[in-house]
């Protein structure tokens, strides 16, 4: 039985699409059958981040409206054949999503894949509520910054009330993924510390992704960061997070300020 996972945050621009691609690719590399769905109708980005933007023929809305079959709309990744993408429409908007349309597509995908990852749009309206509706578990993306934390808290409240699972008396498992974490700035108090975020949000920590130029580089190349530079700090953090999603217990490696050896020797100019 497939796991339906929603990647959400409330706040925009914190790393939902980046994390969906990175986690999806990491799970696919580990042999799981993964489909990632872009729920951001009208402002689609997941296809760009995966480098599939020139192969989009049919999209999510076409499948909902019956203009295309699911197999025609799904785009298989060229690098990982266990990873597929269901892109969003760019010309429509979120009102084109319908409750039974989404339900139908998700149940069809449940039968074909091990993981159905829903990339939620920002906000708390239709797009976000459709993305979270059928979730079994949720990954809440948060930047170590006050507005992001408050918006994440709001979305956690909605996960406990607006999902099918919650309405039936169950509970959606929630995991916190902190992104763009900079340990130096957290130490000086410019950024919230991990313990502070956990105290406010009180959900289990899935991982901490350090701030890194690798993420932007990967996204411009149209590759998930776990594939473009697998040894980089964010890629390793995402891979660890994907392992934790599958039940492995891996201690969270706190990103520390890293300076390479040369940086330490030549850190100060002589007068």
């Amino acid at each position, binding site marked *: 039985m497939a796991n339906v996972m929603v990647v959400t945050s409330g706040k925009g621009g914190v790393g939902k699409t980046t994390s969906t691609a990175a986690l999806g690719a990491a799970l696919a590399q580990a042999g799981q059958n993964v489909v990632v769905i872009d729920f951001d109708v009208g402002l689609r980005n997941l296809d760009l981040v995966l480098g599939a933007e020139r192969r989009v023929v049919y999209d999510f809305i076409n499948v909902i409206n019956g203009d295309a079959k699911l197999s025609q709309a799904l785009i298989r990744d060229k690098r990982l054949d266990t990873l597929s993408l269901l892109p969003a429409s760019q010309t429509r908007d979120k009102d084109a999503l319908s409750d039974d349309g989404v339900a139908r597509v998700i149940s069809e995908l449940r039968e074909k894949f091990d993981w159905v990852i829903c990339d939620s749009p920002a906000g*708390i309206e239709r797009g976000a509520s459709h993305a979270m509706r059928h979730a079994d578990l949720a990954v809440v993306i948060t930047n170590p910054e006050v507005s992001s934390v*408050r*918006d994440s*808290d*709001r979305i956690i*409240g909605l996960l*406990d009330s607006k999902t099918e699972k919650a309405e039936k008396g169950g509970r959606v498992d929630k995991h916190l993924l902190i992104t763009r974490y900079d340990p130096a700035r957290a130490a000086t108090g410019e950024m919230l510390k991990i313990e502070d975020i956990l*105290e*406010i949000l*009180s959900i289990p920590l899935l991982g901490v992704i350090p701030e890194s130029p690798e993420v932007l580089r990967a996204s411009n190349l149209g590759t998930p960061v776990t594939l473009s530079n697998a040894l980089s700090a964010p890629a390793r953090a995402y891979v660890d997070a994907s392992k934790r999603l599958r039940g492995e217990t891996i201690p969270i490696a706190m990103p520390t300020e890293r300076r390479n050896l040369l940086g330490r020797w030549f850190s100060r100019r002589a007068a």
Partner: protein
Amino acid sequence: MNNPVPRASAFSFKGKSFVAYVLTPEPPIRDWLGALDGWLARSPAFFVRRPVLLDGSKMNPTLAELEELLAELSKRDIRILGIDGVDDAVVAAGMPPLVTGGRDRQEVGYAERSAAKPQKASSLVIEKSVRSGQSIAHLEGDVTVLGPVASGAEIMAGGSIHIYGALRGRVIAGSTGDTRARIFCQKLDAELVAISGFYRSADAIDEGLRGRPVQAWLEGDAIKIAALS
């Protein structure tokens, strides 16, 4: 000279219909007010936010009697939307307007109440944290939260509010007028604290109390906050 022709006004309005509750006082008014008090004791917030009309046909009030009655109702937090069944002469400026032409609905008040759950003071216990954006309203009594109340969340209680956790949101105690209501929390970081209509925003809360377990209560028209030892 040409005078510019004024454009037709863009003003427009629409109609809306409500079901209003109609109070029909019968003399002796003292007894009628006593019966009303009995009702309010059982259902304290019954008339809050409901449209209420006054039908004076059984009372035939003079201007002074009507003014006194409106004052008595106002003391009980009942605002009258309109007055029916009295002479034009009796309604003074500043009183609710005369309304006519309403359609009767069958006895709504008592039947509804007996079908509803008993309105005695009850306590609401919330066993998890209250998240941002969630709004808890429990006008019938105390509210107890076993967890933190997040920034952007709101709790409104007719009685006291007890928070076994950090308070980062808004709390409104004694919302139906109970001035003895108190607010307790384990860690004060509230956005707003209010008791029975009086409020204190985060700005006005002493810095020394922030982050500590406190209780808040009303003394006269001032909210007092003190640390719990």
